[in-house]
């Protein structure tokens, strides 16, 4: 009975020795691949895939570590140097590093983020594409009350605002609506059924992420926010010190090229056509002439 066990232990030792030698060999022969991470959010993964492909096209080797979950999980990995590049959102990341931050406008948030980032991490070029909280109404409701901006709601009474339970306490929630725009709303916690509730008429206004494909698909009207109630949250690549200047320039170029409409279109392709992020990313890069 003991013999085969001994044998397997021996072979395990031999195997691990081979593995160690093999790993050592790898480290010598080629430079470390760049590790690209992404959140467990399909839209974020597509953007990460765009970064990966543009780097691969330039001859870099890339290690994809996608669907890493929440900031609490992956930011420590970024700081530890386990991840080199990560597509992020300015406002949300700023709030993570500096919960007291007050900037809401696009440029201000970007600058505040650069200041708030710990040593070893850099925010590359800001993208025009954003994925942030926004207030949306149905086109019928917008037409009936002639709405384009959140402020236009000031005269309308009995507005029911729907969103996740935490919206009730957020600075851009009912309190912010009243102080910034003089709009009074009644809050309804609609949770994950917010968009459905808006369409069904259970609420009048819904908090939806601005790059959500359903805004386009259902013809919802996103109300403009001239007072900067919402924290801007534009796409921005975060790079560690392990990323060299050439690679940074490549990713910055991609980031600058991505417009708000582009990001929505990428999301729509993922939701509607159920394509893989690799295909969506490749098609977009080709259409922009960023790879060939």
């Amino acid at each position, binding site marked *: 009975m003991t013999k085969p066990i001994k044998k397997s232990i021996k072979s395990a030792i031999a195997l691990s020795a081979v593995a160690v030698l093999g790993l050592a060999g790898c480290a010598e022969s080629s430079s470390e691949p760049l590790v690209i991470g992404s959140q467990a959010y399909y839209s974020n993964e597509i953007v990460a895939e765009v970064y990966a492909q543009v780097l691969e096209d330039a001859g870099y080797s890339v290690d994809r570590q996608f669907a890493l979950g929440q900031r609490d999980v992956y930011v420590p990995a970024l700081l530890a140097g386990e991840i080199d590049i990560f597509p992020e959102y300015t406002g949300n990341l700023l709030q993570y590093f500096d919960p007291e931050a007050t900037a809401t406008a696009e440029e201000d948030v970007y600058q505040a983020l650069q200041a708030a980032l710990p040593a070893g991490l850099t925010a590359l070029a800001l993208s025009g594409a954003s994925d942030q909280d926004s207030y949306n109404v149905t086109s019928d409701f917008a037409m009936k009350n002639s709405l384009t901006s959140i402020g236009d709601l000031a005269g309308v009474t009995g507005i029911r605002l729907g969103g996740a339970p935490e919206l009730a306490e957020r600075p851009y929630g009912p309190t912010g609506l009243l102080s910034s725009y003089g709009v009074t709303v009644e*809050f309804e916690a609609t949770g994950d059924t917010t968009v459905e509730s808006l369409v069904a008429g259970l609420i009048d206004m819904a908090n939806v992420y601005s790059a959500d494909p359903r805004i386009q698909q259902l013809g919802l009207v996103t109300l403009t926010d001239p007072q900067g109630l919402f924290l801007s949250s534009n796409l921005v690549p975060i790079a560690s010190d392990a990323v060299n200047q050439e690679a940074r320039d490549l990713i910055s170029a991609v980031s600058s090229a991505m417009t708000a409409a582009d990001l929505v279109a990428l999301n729509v392709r993922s939701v509607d056509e159920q394509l893989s992020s690799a295909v969506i990313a490749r098609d977009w890069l080709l259409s922009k002439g960023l790879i060939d």
Partner: protein
Amino acid sequence: MFSIGELFDWLTDAENWTGRYGLANLFVEHLTLTLVSLAIAGLLAIPIGVAIGQSGRGETLVIAISSASRAIPTMGLMFALVMFMGVEFRQFAVVLALVGIAIPPVLAGAYAGIKSIPIVIREGARAQGMTTLQQIRHVGLPLSASSIAGGFKIAYLQVVSTVVLAPLVGLGGLGFGVIQGLALRDFAQLTGSAVVIVLLSITGERLLAKAQGKLDRRLTQSKINR
């Protein structure tokens, strides 16, 4: 970062108990959803369980339902029903999902209660000339009452803890404070709501266990008095 004192402060702050999403209102919503679901489940499952136990037919159904229930992802069932029926009917959809969760234990309790009655007693009732309905009313139900209460006890715990998910589909209930507290990193609210949920679960479970014990005692006493 977070202390018992903060939790106590949060729970004793009157502001947290009032309003649309105050604890008082959420508590009532939570309890209502739970009791309505249990009542409907009882109305459906007790007659079926008793009928199966009495007739001895369809016993495989009881086993199938109670084993299948272990595999049902309750959260998925709730979401699927809300999406299928439409958000306008979310209350109905959630109650339906909760009834689905509550039926198996109540059904198993009713069936097992009838099944555990000694055959001599059941045959004795029949030999006295009782009709099937009389057998159920005067022998079956009184003797299986404790087992049915045991089924309700399990169902109550499962339903009361599943209702915590209701705010995800736009309904109220004490889960609101848990979900909101988690998102806002308000640990006093999160823990405070959780404490109320736990108290509600334990109190209900204890009450049902007490009822079960009482019914049990009545059963043994009636044997002695015979």
